[in-house]
């Protein structure tokens, strides 16, 4: 039982990070039907921007809790802004010029961007792991045999707040309505006066900023980042988006958490050596038996 609860907590923690990344895949797919395979790299760049930001501001280990929270906030905001802009730039350079080409062309372009970003980061920071300082104090809450760290609580809290905010934005504001309208019909969206290109840029910004938050939290959780971290995390988050039903925002959130839980429980009960296998087994199963994903059911699109 203790093992179960412990792995549930661990899985939930990493799952919310996957969920944050999955949002970008699903939002971009929703709006331009593109699988942005460079998105995992945006997550990784987000982690590096966060690391650079606290290095720049000269973080000293052992700060008080309020100070630590301030540092975390600064890290997150700078990383979100930087990665968000990176997302827009990627769209402008790599996708917009080929917007009307066959989808495979954009997919190849995405893989190219992915290589460019990985290698750029490797050239700038070097190929070795970069240590991420302990910003959030290393506090453990122990309940019997189950431990939950302050860092885990922070990850859950930050992710939850962002997802609630994003859901509100998309479902209940005029901007969100415009995003959903654009994802359905670009031409009609233009006819009602929506600036479609602007909405696409905004979508890239938000999706990339969410991934950046995931990247910063990921770095703080594992205390290290590497230029190829985006590859595996990106693929797992992509799996999460497919699991939830690509294009569906709540689906990406649920999908991410489920992938994290599968990984946590699989590592706990089967073998942690096989940790990375579980997500992709799920991907294969989903594609075989329910390619639309859990929430991919569409309301009738009558012409």
């Amino acid at each position, binding site marked *: 039982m203790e093992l179960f609860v412990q792995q549930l907590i661990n899985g939930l923690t990493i799952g919310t990070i996957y969920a944050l990344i999955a949002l970008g895949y699903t939002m971009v797919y929703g709006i331009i039907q593109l699988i942005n395979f460079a998105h995992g790299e945006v997550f990784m760049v987000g982690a590096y921007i966060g690391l650079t930001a606290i290095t720049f501001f000269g973080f000293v280990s052992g700060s008080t809790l309020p100070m630590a929270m301030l540092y975390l906030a600064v890290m997150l905001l700078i990383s979100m802004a930087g990665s968000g802009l990176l997302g827009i730039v990627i769209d402008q350079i790599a996708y917009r010029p080929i917007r009307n080409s066959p989808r495979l062309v954009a997919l190849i372009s995405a893989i190219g961007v992915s290589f460019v970003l990985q290698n750029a980061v490797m050239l700038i920071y070097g190929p070795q792991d970069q240590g991420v300082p302990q910003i959030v104090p290393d506090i453990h809450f122990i309940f019997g045999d189950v431990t939950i760290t302050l860092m885990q609580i922070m990850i859950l809290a930050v992710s939850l707040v962002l997802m609630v905010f994003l859901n509100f934005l998309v479902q209940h504001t005029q901007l969100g309505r415009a995003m959903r*309208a654009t994802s359905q019909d670009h031409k009609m969206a233009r006819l009602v*006066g929506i600036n479609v290109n602007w909405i696409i840029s905004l979508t890239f910004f938000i999706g990339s900023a969410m991934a950046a938050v995931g990247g910063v939290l990921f770095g703080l959780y594992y205390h290290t980042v590497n230029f190829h971290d985006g590859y595996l995390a990106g693929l797992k988050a992509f799996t999460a988006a497919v699991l939830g039903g690509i294009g569906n925002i709540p689906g990406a959130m649920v999908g991410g958490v489920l992938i994290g839980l599968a990984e946590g429980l699989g590592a706990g009960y089967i073998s942690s050596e096989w940790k990375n296998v579980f997500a992709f087994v799920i991907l294969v199963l989903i594609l075989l038996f329910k390619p639309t994903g859990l929430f991919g059911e569409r309301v*009738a699109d009558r012409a």
Partner: protein
Amino acid sequence: MLKLENVKAGYGSIEVLHGISLEVSEGEIVTVIGANGAGKTTTLSAISGLIPLRGGKIVTLGICQVPEGRRIFSRLTVHENLKLGAFRVRDKKKCAQTYETLLDFFPILRERLNQPAGLLSGGEQQMLAIARGLMSQPKMLLLDEPSLGLAPKLVASIFDYLVKINRSGMTILLVEQNARLALEVASRAYVIETGNILMKGPAQELLHSDKVKKAYLGE
């Protein structure tokens, strides 16, 4: 209210409109009829600014296009569709007023406000498309094939609505393949063929002209 002078437009290397001139004055229903591929939708696209002009000029004032095939946002609710119609309207109070007036005018939409628009029937979707257009508080409505894909009874009801909307002061430019119906409600009409205006005149006159009868009314 709307004036096209010798408008030329097309897609890629193909010129579709070879110099269209037409005019709509305030309070009129003017219809443009013609066969498939004559250039009707292209004319509307040029007026709405969806495609660039290659010649001539267009003077418009507060137009709103209700496109062919309705193109409602099917996964959004009826309410959200209407709200998006007013995307560019900054005056919130007037927007709320228009919203209420339209729901009184189309009571069926009020009953289905929170349903996804894709669940509406074809006729209801056409009403929603028209109402969404009117939410932008245009001076003039451009309608592209409002009868498309609707049962004859529903078509009649949609056209009744159009006449009522016109009586309340809205200028309408109507593009239709259903020539008879369009000519019956319109005051003036243009016949368009392969990108040129072939005939124009009072709708009643065209309705009884032998040429129109033969080519478009199937008599």
